[in-house]
């Protein structure tokens, strides 16, 4: 992303924001980076919301309790709607996944913070977790019948050498697309922030005309913040609902 510029000019450096740096007095000893710190903060925030939200047990919920109950109901309904009545079993998993991703996306929008979902290592680990659990669930539910998933019933048998590899590739591409989608959305958003913010600095450093023109990129970044809030929530939702759809396939086969 670095743009070659005459000496003295600020350059667009959009990717250094994703660099990991150890934090804390023994961060470098155990490789505890700001990504890990944000993960701990995000998990703590969700736990705090649920703990303090469910403590009052009021009949008429207050704001915090309403937020906790709404988040519970939202994920619960998503799991049951998508997976079916059996979805209740997977609700804790989907809930954890959804809020971990959501916290990663949202906390990343706080200035001077870090988006841990912008690292493919994190999203790929989550997607692998999903796909391993889905496969284990499918095998536990259906045993060897699970492998008929790769050959839809009703297809002519002589097409099997073609269909089976395609279905297997399609199945294996799920974790790849799941992880890349989240990671790419987050990286793209934050790169755009950095690029337009650098425009502001570049324009403002020139002259009065530049300073006035710098209002443009500032306005774009203001709009982008709103857009990124939407993307943050939407991508967490997409991640969770695709997990539910895969679990539906695992429970019901086809």
């Amino acid at each position, binding site marked *: 992303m670095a743009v070659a510029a005459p000496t003295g000019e600020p350059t667009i450096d959009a990717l250094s924001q994703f660099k990991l740096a150890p934090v804390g007095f023994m961060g470098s000893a155990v490789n505890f980076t700001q990504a890990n710190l944000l993960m701990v903060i995000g998990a703590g925030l969700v736990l705090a919301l649920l703990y303090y939200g469910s403590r009052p047990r009021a009949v008429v919920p207050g704001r915090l309790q309403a937020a906790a109950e709404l988040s519970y109901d939202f994920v619960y309904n998503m799991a049951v*709607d998508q997976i079916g009545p059996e979805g209740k079993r997977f609700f804790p998993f989907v809930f954890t996944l959804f809020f971990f991703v959501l916290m990663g996306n949202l906390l990343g929008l706080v200035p001077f913070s870090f988006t841990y979902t912008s690292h493919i290592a994190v999203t790929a680990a989550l997607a692998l977790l999903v796909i391993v659990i889905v496969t284990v669930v499918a095998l536990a539910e259906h045993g060897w019948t699970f492998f008929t998933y790769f050959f839809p019933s009703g297809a002519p048998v002589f097409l099997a050498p073609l269909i089976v*590899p395609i279905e297997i*590739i399609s199945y294996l591409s799920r974790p790849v697309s799941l992880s890349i*989608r989240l990671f790419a959305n987050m990286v793209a958003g934050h790169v755009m922030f950095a690029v337009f913010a650098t425009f502001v600095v570049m324009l403002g450093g020139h002259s009065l005309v530049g300073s006035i023109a710098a209002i443009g990129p500032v306005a774009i970044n203001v709009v982008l913040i709103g857009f990124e809030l939407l993307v943050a929530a939407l991508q967490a939702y997409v991640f969770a609902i695709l997990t539910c759809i895969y679990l539906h396939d695992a429970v019901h086969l086809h």
Partner: protein
Amino acid sequence: MSEDDSGAGGSFEARLRAARSRQGMDAPPAADSPSTVKESSALGVGMRVGVELVSALAVAIAIGWGLDHWLHTLPLFLVVFLVLGGAAGVANVWRLVGPPRR
């Protein structure tokens, strides 16, 4: 909680049925098609289609190259799986934008 949000207006039977299906005692009345994810923007749909195509191709190339590396038949499986990967990508996209199954 949300026990009463199905509305006080409905008859007892309707509310009982809704409550039973909510608790998982009966199957939900209409199993709506689960394989459709509503993504608001055209950009989102385009993004998903692209990711699906590329990821299937990437997985297929990885498998093909791995098989070749293992069996020392370098171009053979790579070529075969390249075609299969493209087909799998199109199948993914069809599952995404095609009519819902069942």
